[in-house]
């Protein structure tokens, strides 16, 4: 287990290098001259040249990548063309909002999805079970921005229970959190259900029942704990997808997070911000996957890694 963890962490290094090369290349594949867009439309030729030199844009590509990597390790992602502030600082301000939103959506999906999954596995082929199957298909078919707008008009325009946009207390978090999490409720429920059904037909469950344990202990202590292990691994994948969905949800609800910031930067061609936000998203996905993989080994000691 320790060796496996160590190897996974060492494997992070080529992954992160790959990501940094990919993100670095984004800047150089974008059509147009970054020095000119940094200087602004009214700048003279000399000004553009000066900026080109000061950003190191006149050097060959591998040298530029080296410089980029060196700055990256120091936590320097360049400055926003628009606000002239360091990108690291701007990202630092917005990242907590995105994490808050994704964690809330994940909690919503898990806290609702797992109990529903357990219930429908205990009574397969009933009304609840069928509903879950339909909702799972609805969930993957519903465009998240449309869902958000429908919830917004229902809960803040018609019922006036919740604020429509912005970030503040818990009340502001509810609508965007539900929008981002709702499509996953049924998916988590179905996954829990099918794992529960698999586990409950195992020999050790029959043994537990035959030695006279009460049904509640059998289901929760012997069944559920084992059924949830595969669910945990998929939660990592869902978390990555939620980060993608967060970009849209943040735009719908004017949520001041990283996703909306990235879209604004793409529209305005604020290249260092685009680079920085893509980098942070990519690293988050990699880290979440690593944590989930390690957790998987920890939860299921039967798994050996050769």
């Amino acid at each position, binding site marked *: 287990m320790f060796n496996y963890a160590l190897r996974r962490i060492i494997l992070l290094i080529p*992954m992160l290098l*790959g990501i940094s090369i*990919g993100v670095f290349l*984004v800047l150089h*594949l*974008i*059509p147009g001259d970054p020095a000119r867009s940094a200087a602004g439309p009214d700048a003279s030729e000399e000004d553009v040249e000066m900026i080109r030199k000061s950003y190191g844009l006149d050097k060959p590509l591998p040298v530029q990548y080296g410089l980029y990597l060196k700055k990256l390790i120091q936590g320097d992602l360049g400055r926003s063309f628009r606000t002239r502030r360091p990108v690291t600082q701007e990202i630092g301000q917005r990242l907590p909002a995105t994490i808050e939103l994704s964690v809330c959506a994940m909690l919503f999906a898990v806290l609702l999805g797992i109990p529903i999954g357990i219930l429908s596995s205990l009574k*397969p*082929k009933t009304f609840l*079970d069928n509903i879950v*199957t339909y909702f799972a*298909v*609805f969930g*993957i*078919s*519903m*465009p*998240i*921005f*449309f869902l958000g*707008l*429908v919830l*917004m*008009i229902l809960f803040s*325009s018609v019922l006036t229970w919740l604020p429509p946009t912005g970030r503040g207390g818990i009340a502001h978090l509810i609508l965007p959190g539900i929008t981002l999490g709702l499509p996953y409720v049924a998916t988590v429920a179905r996954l829990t*259900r*099918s794992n529960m*059904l698999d586990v409950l037909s195992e020999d050790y469950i029959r043994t537990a029942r035959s030695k006279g344990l009460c049904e509640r202990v059998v289901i929760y202590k012997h069944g559920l704990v084992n059924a949830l292990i595969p669910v945990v691994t998929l939660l990592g*994948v869902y978390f*990555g*997808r939620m*980060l*993608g*969905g967060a*970009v*849209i949800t943040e*735009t719908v609800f004017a949520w001041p997070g990283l996703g909306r910031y*990235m*879209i604004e930067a*793409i*529209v305005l061609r604020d290249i260092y911000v*685009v680079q920085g936000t*893509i980098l942070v*998203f*990519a690293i988050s*996905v*990699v880290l979440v*996957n690593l944590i989930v993989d390690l957790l998987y080994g920890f939860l299921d000691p039967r798994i050996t890694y050769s």
Partner: protein
Amino acid sequence: MIKFLAFLVRSKDFSAIGGLIVVAAFILTAVCAPWLASWESATKVALQHSLLKPSQQHVLGTDEMGRDLLVRIIWGARISLVVAILSVSLSLVVGVFIGALAGYYEDKRLSFITMRIMDSLIAFPRILLAIMLITIMGTGIVSLTTAIGLSTIPIYARLIRGPVLSLKKREYVLAAKSIGTGDLSILFKEILPNTLSNIIVQGTISIAEAILIASGLSFLGLGPQPPIPEWGAMIASSRAYIRSAPHVVFAPGIALFVVILGFNILGDGLRDYYDPRFKKTQRG
């Protein structure tokens, strides 16, 4: 096709029949759009008719620019279908090619490295990959299609590699090899035709996903630009009027939901058709 319909009727899978009808209606609308309404009536601004409620003249009402919503939705169907079909074809051709080669030559170092890259790309949310590609290529229908297509390649590579790995050890393949058939001929004539059912099922679901992602990217302003009537872009430009005239958002939104749902349900039906065991194990 007729066999599949007979299977759906026999197994009383009415939701899949519904999905098939929705998909057929969607494709018919998209193909016939130029005969149903002119492109000009879908894009021309007529502010004196803006935000009209549904009536006999405008069955779904008009948007904030006074354009008939039904006409825009009909043309939007055409755009969605073109983007979905082309992007899925791109990812399918490239992805199947990569997956097939990586599966057939599994011992080669290049196959190993390629599949590792594909596996790492699958971990990333596809919409983020597509956003990154659009940043490079700029906005518009062509780059939207390419971005969705390229970001879906890893899914097909992984989908095909597994079956190829097991099929290449089958006796009929070994027999073909022993009579001196070339590698590529075995791969494309003997092995790949047997993965067709996987490709059809995944292809149907991919079209649903492509329409979903395309509408999301267009909603963010990264797809076709106004006045092109893409459904997601229509919702984005009309959302400011959602309180006074909800139909401007609900009409394209419901169209999106129904079409994507249709493709997903049809995909499920096709999976049951090709692999009846799946239904038993997954659906209890």
